C-alpha cells in the first residue's frame, strides 16, 4: 500500500475542524466559526485566509437589510479535499475503519460518506 500524503492545509487541528463544521452546516459567518471553534479573531482569520487562498473556502459578501455579512462556504475543491483527507485518515487507521469504532460509526451517522482511495 502506497502512503499518500495527507493534505497539509487540512492536516491542522483548527483548519480540519473548520472544514468539518462548514461541510456539515453549509455556510457560516466569521462569528459562528469563532464560536464553534472557540478561536480568537486573529487565529481564525489566519486559518481562513489560508483556506481562501487555496480556493478551499470562498467568502460570499451578502448585502441586505442591516449590515453586510460575509459567509464562508467550502468550494467544490475544498469539499473534495476534505473528503479525501478524511478517507486518507481512515485508511491510515486500518483497525478503526475495519472495526467501525465510535469515531467512524459516528462519521457515517452524520451522513458523510468517505471515498476510500
Amino acid at each position, binding site marked *: 500500500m502506497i502512503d499518500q500524503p495527507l493534505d497539509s492545509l487540512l492536516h491542522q487541528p483548527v483548519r480540519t475542524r473548520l472544514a468539518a*463544521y462548514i461541510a456539515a452546516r453549509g455556510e457560516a459567518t466569521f462569528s459562528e466559526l469563532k464560536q464553534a471553534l472557540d478561536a480568537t479573531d486573529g487565529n481564525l482569520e489566519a486559518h481562513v485566509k489560508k483556506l481562501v487562498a487555496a480556493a478551499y473556502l470562498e467568502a460570499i459578501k451578502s448585502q441586505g437589510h442591516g449590515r453586510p455579512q460575509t459567509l464562508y462556504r467550502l468550494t467544490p475543491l475544498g469539499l473534495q479535499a476534505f473528503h479525501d483527507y478524511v478517507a486518507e485518515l481512515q485508511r491510515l487507521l486500518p483497525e478503526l475503519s475495519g472495526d467501525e469504532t465510535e469515531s467512524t460509526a459516528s462519521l457515517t451517522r452524520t451522513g458523510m460518506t468517505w471515498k476510500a482511495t
Partner: protein
Amino acid sequence: MNLNSQSSGSAQLQAIQAMLSSGHASIRLERHTFMIWGMTAAALILVVPRLISLESFPDHSERLWLQTLVISMALLVAGVVDARWTARARRRRDESLSFIQRQITKLWWLLIALVVVIDIGMSLYGGGYFFYGIALVLTGIGIYVHGLFSRQMLTWGGALQILLGLTMIATSPDMTVQEWVAVSDFGIGFPAFALMVDRTQQRNPVRELSLSLLWLSLVLIPAFVMVMLFQTHQYDDWPKLTWDAYVDGAMSTGGDTAVVTLPAGSLVPVSLAITGDLLVPVEQPQPLMMMTTKPVDLALEQGELQGMTRFGEGDWRSGYDYRIERWEAKGSLSPSRGASLDVRFNLCFER
C-alpha cells in the same frame, strides 16, 4: 505526511466528528418565532369563529372561504414577519441561517398549510371535532423536526405538543375545552417554549420532567380557568322561566334576559334539509318530531336564543357544541318497495 500515532489520528477523526455533529445541529429558533406563531394562532382561534360566525354569515360556503382567507392571510403575515425578524436578528449577531434551517422552515410552512387544508376539509366533510388536536400534533411535529437538528430543547417541546394533541384526540373533550386548551397552548405554551428551550442543552431527565410539568401547568390551568368562567357565566343569576310561563308570554313582560327551561319529554320538531347531486327533495320535508331526554335550560336575550344551553344539572355550554357521529347510508331495492335509502346518524349534544 504520516500520522505520528494512531491516537492522534483517532483524535483527529473524533474532532471532525464533533464538528460535523455541531454543524448539523445548526438550527436555532428565535424567541420571537414562538411568540409570533403562538400569538397569531391563539388570536385566530379566538377571533375568527366569533367574527365570521353563523349569525353574521349564514351561508356555509361564504363563511368557510372568508374564514380560510382571514386565516391564510394572518398566517402569511406571521410567516413573513418571522422571516424578516429572524434575518434581522441573525445579521445583528453576524450569524447566518443554516442550509438545514432553511429547508426545515419550508417543512414548517408545509405543515401550516396542511393545518389550513385540514380545516377546509373538515368544514366541508365533517370531523371538526378533531381539528384542534390535529393542529397541535402537526405543529408539534414541526417543532420536533426542528429539534432533530438543534441544540435547543426543541424535541422535548415538540413531543409535549404532540402528546397534548394526541390526548385531545383520544379523550375528545367538549369543543369549549378543546378551544381554550388550544388557545392556551399557542398563546401561553409557545411563549413559554421560547423561554424554556434555551435553559439546558444537556439531557437531564429530571429537569426535562420538571419543565414538562411546569409547561403543562402553564397551559392547562389557564385553559381550565377560562372553561370554568365560561361555564359558570352569569346565566345562573338570570331570571328563570318555566316553559308554561314562556309560552304565556312572560318574556315580553319581563326583563331583557331569562333562562327558559324546556322540561324533559318535550317534543321538539327537527327539520332535516337534505340536498345532494343525485337526490333532490320533491316536496317540503315534514319536521321529525323528537323528544328531549332531560331538561334543557336555554339562555334568552332580548327574546332571542343567546347560544348558551345547559342539559339537566350539567354545565352551561355553547348550543353549537354538538357532533354528528356514525353516519350510515344504506340503499335497498325490492319489487314491492322499489329503491330506498336509509340514512342514519347520531346527533350528540353531550359527552
